[in-house]
């Protein structure tokens, strides 16, 4: 901490410490108000009618029978949208309500507002919609065929982006290739979509309390659909119970505001778990082919890859997800020559968009499986092949961009190689429930083989491709109290803990208050892309620095000194030329300042047609090691331990970093072993937590984490984003460990190529009848 001159003992709750979350106790006591707990006097309930068909023309909608039900106030359809009929994050291609055509099962067609939930449910059933069912496009590979009829006026191809560089004629001494696929993962946030809209008295505007990731983006889209000026719409952050990308797109925002304006009464909408699966975008299922060329020593000389991303019915952020995948195809490894092709297409499946890792998860699974294959082919240890190819600061990516971020890939590998191993399978007295199969009591020590696997990744931080990415923060000083105002969505990541820490350390004042998180201040950008500590943290720091500057100037004027001699040390103001110290609480008596700052990261540029350009802002790196016990005959896996070494720049709040690491690993483990939305003809077969499985405490192993703290010169306070990396390479590490166990037991077992892993993928090693 010496770089900031902070004496930790003298300031409580500053940077580098782990103060408790302001909402932590309320959350653990169940007292915290999530958006689903919101209510207002005189409140009505809204509910959405959704398409039962993957692809159909709407012939007619008859709302009369539903309106006749006592207690039903209004029913709205596409005809009732006063403004823009469509919305979307990148292209505005998704209807608020389907007007003529439905493109996926679950697409909103109408919304009902009624006295209560039961009446809503009956009204929804009573609405008569006549459909003419159209042939559905369910296969992403078919969608890219130019002969396939378009399912959307914008066409079936959302984006094609290749990355081509170097000498493509290069051929390696060693070549490995395979096809990989990733199933559709859900964000599975626990706090379901919900919002409360309160119309202004004169119905000329509306206030909407909503759980979201980006208030201002919602504001712009909602106001356009409502045909209201943005000044007439106020968005207030409702208590958010997790997000993980699933709240970047609008879900019920426009619907609930329309219903409130139509009735002149507060309206609440609240999705059930099964509706939530239909109400937000998911992680893209992807089909990936990769071919790696290397010298006989295992040095990468060329990478070839093809990505097909199924974007579902609407574009959402598919184009940006695709760019992340193709530009991260090499992983954290040097390689000069590459031919990477990528396409994201529309289908009549569930729309896909942002989820923690954003395209890099898919790429990383494939490149890490490939690195394992390459290690095998070159007769090298999996860590050695990675060591030989490890990227470092100053290396050029396949996009031509030079990695200026601190890139401690070798340090990560060294860190992983030093980590001690947990005791071997059977070495300790294991309870049967600590075996693969867990509480199912299937397995005994003799059935188990241990495996070890690794995964490494590189992840871009912040927004890319010339996006004007900024965040706004305001710092007010009054009566010795610092008040911070920002619109940064707190979705659980802990910005409301970090922001006061930044203010305390910058100003040497411990009393920091947070104003409401709403649209009464400029945009903070999205809580995504691992960007808020950097962006909103940067904005808070900059606003606090301005206030600090004003304090220095004030003191300098009254003391007749140069403002440059002052510094903050802990909770004290120091005159660095005299060594005099005064508590900041005394210094600021009677002072009032109010500063607002927009913080921007350095500009980025779009990619050209060969995928060349400095499109990303910065990068973070991480490595994972999984130790697993596998019951090969039954295909059951128990993850024994996950270890990780993560490049964090600087841990501003070590406990928060640990939280992100453990949670991210749980999500990565989930994708590896169980999490998948299974669609059959566009219908979700497992729309509940009975069958959409997420890891429980019995699945989550101990996590051993080591942080690499090399402050990044470009990052405010030296801190890199830490939210996404834990999710990304934990998945391939688990799969690699399972593969290692299979190879240990049976020499060369079938190569694992798909997540989530099915027990039969493993068990087919012993029973060929279970093969594809």
């Amino acid at each position: 901490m010496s770089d900031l001159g902070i004496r930790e003992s003298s300031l409580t709750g500053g940077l580098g410490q782990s103060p408790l979350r302001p909402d932590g106790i309320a959350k653990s006591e169940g007292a915290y108000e999530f958006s689903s707990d919101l209510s207002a006097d005189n409140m009505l309930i809204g509910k959405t009618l959704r398409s039962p068909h993957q692809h159909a023309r709407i012939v007619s909608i008859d709302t009369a029978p539903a309106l006749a039900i006592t207690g039903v106030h209004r029913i709205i359809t596409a005809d009732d949208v006063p403004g823009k009929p469509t919305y979307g994050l990148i292209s505005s291609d998704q209807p608020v309500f389907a007007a003529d055509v439905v493109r996926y099962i679950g697409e909103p067609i109408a919304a009902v507002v009624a006295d209560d939930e039961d009446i809503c449910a009956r009204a929804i059933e009573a609405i008569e919609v006549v459909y003419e069912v159209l042939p559905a496009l369910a296969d992403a590979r078919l969608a890219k065929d130019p002969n396939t009829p378009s399912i959307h006026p914008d066409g079936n191809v959302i984006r094609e982006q290749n990355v081509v560089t170097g000498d493509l004629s290069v051929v390696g001494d060693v070549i490995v290739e395979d096809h990989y696929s990733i199933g559709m993962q859900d964000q599975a946030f626990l706090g379901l979509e919900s919002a409360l809209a309160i119309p202004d008295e004169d119905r000329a505007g509306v206030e909407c309390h909503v759980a979201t990731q980006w208030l201002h983006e919602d504001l712009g889209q909602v106001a356009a659909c409502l045909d209201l000026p943005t000044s007439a719409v106020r968005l207030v952050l409702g208590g958010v119970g997790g997000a993980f990308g699933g709240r970047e797109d609008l879900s019920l925002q426009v619907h609930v505001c329309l219903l409130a304006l139509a009735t002149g009464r507060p309206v609440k909408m609240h999705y059930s778990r099964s509706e939530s699966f239909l109400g937000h975008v998911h992680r893209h299922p992807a089909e990936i082919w990769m071919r790696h060329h290397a010298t006989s020593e295992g040095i990468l000389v060329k990478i070839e890859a093809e990505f097909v991303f199924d974007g579902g019915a609407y574009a959402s952020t598919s184009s940006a997800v695709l760019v992340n995948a193709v530009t991260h195809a090499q992983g954290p490894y040097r390689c000069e020559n590459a031919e990477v092709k990528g396409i994201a297409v529309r289908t009549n499946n569930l729309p896909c968009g942002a989820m923690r890792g954003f395209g890099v998860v898919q790429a990383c699974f494939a490149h890490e499986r490939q690195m394992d294959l390459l290690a095998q082919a070159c007769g090298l240890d999996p860590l050695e092949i990675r060591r030989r190819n490890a990227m470092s600061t100053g290396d050029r990516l396949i996009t031509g961009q030079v990695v200026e971020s601190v890139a401690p890939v070798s340090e990560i590998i060294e860190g992983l190689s030093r980590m001690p191993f947990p005791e071997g399978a059977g070495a300790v007295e294991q309870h049967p429930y600590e075996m693969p199969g867990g509480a199912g009591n299937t397995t005994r020590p003799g059935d188990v083989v241990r495996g070890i696997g690794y995964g490494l990744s590189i992840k871009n931080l912040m927004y890319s491709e010339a996006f004007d990415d900024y965040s706004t923060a305001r710092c007010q000083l009054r009566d010795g109290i610092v008040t911070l105002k920002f619109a940064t969505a707190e979705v659980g990541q802990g910005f409301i803990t970090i922001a006061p820490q930044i203010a305390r350390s910058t100003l040497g004042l411990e009393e920091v208050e947070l104003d409401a998180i709403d649209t009464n201040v400029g945009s903070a950008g999205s809580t995504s892309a691992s960007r808020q500590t950097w962006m909103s943290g940067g904005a808070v720091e900059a606003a606090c620095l301005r206030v600090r500057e004003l304090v220095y100037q004030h003191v300098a004027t009254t003391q007749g000194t140069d403002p440059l001699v002052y510094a903050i040390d802990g909770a004290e103001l120091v005159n660095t030329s005299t060594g005099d110290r005064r508590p900041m609480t005394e210094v600021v008596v009677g002072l009032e300042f109010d500063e607002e700052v927009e913080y921007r990261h350095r500009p980025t540029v779009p990619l050209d047609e060969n995928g060349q350009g400095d499109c990303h802002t910065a990068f973070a790196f991480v490595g994972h090691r999984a130790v697993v016990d596998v019951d090969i005959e039954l295909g059951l896996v128990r993850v024994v331990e996950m270890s990780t070494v993560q490049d964090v720049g600087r841990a501003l709040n070590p406990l928060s970093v640990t939280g992100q690491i453990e949670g991210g690993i749980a999500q990565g483990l989930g994708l590896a072993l169980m999490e998948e939305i299974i669609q059959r003809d566009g219908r979700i077969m497992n729309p509940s937590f009975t069958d959409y499985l997420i890891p429980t405490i019995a699945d989550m192993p101990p996590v051993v984490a080591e942080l690499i703290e090399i402050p990044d010169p470009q990052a405010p306070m030296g801190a890199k984003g830490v939210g996404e990396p834990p999710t990304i390479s934990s998945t391939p590490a688990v799969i690699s460990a399972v593969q290692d166990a299979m190879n240990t037991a049976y020499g060369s077992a079938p190569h694992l190529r798909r997540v989530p892993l099915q027990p039969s993928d493993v068990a087919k090693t012993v029973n060929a009848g279970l093969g594809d």
Partner: protein
Amino acid sequence: MCVPVAHPQSIEQLTALLRDEPKTVLLAGGTDLMVALNHGSQRIGPDELVVSLKEVPELSIIEVDHVQRLLRIGAGVNWDELLGAPVDTLAPCLTQAARTVGSHQIRTAGTIGGNIATASPAGDGVCALVALGAVAVLTSPEGQRRVAVEDVATGPKRSVLANDEFIESIEMPIVDGWQGYSKIGTRNAMVISVAGVAVVLSADSNSCRIALGSVGPTVMLADNASTFAGDSIDWTNKEISADSLERISELVRQVASPIDDHRSTATYRSHSVGVLARRLIERGLQEMRNSI
């Protein structure tokens, strides 16, 4: 949703209600019923009365009849109560099955009677009871009848229970020997069975009963495999040949008639019940040998 709920205080009151009310829906722990209502796959009609079984004391008995060597468990006994004495020593495979059920919250709400009446092929308790040779005691205004547990369900969500009939208790023999239950799910806890097997090895009668879950429309007794196992085990030395074990696996796989669904594939289910049956018998014989 708001519906009236009747709370009979005795078997007598319960039976009278079932006689007098034209249409009733029984509610025990509600861990199946409430899920079905919330999902809309089941509804309470305006002419239906919900009858809670919670306050009928006779339904929560656990009785041991040492003379007849019988264990009698009330239908309203919850999973948590099956984890401890006396069930854990007298019917350990039922305890093992109970431990695999849901989470702590589900285990303190859900009942063994509800598990049988729900008629799911994935019912963990049912599988253990079938291997134990348990009998369900069904009571209605017309009287009582006893039905082998494997014959209560006639298909998924279908059973022999009449509208005015309820499960009062379950009776099972106290078997000297060994018993075990294993279940496969794709996570380590709180998961619906993809395949389940219960095995009871009886040293009293030198016989074996193997029950299979999630591999057919109902939990089933693997008759041929059970008979073959009983005949091929060397009961004196508690041993069995590798060939016989393989044959048992095969017979189990043959009788299984699973489906492909979102939880698993038919081939994996067949494979895994074969493996589990073999492992349980091996495990049982070994533990019996160790305890000689």
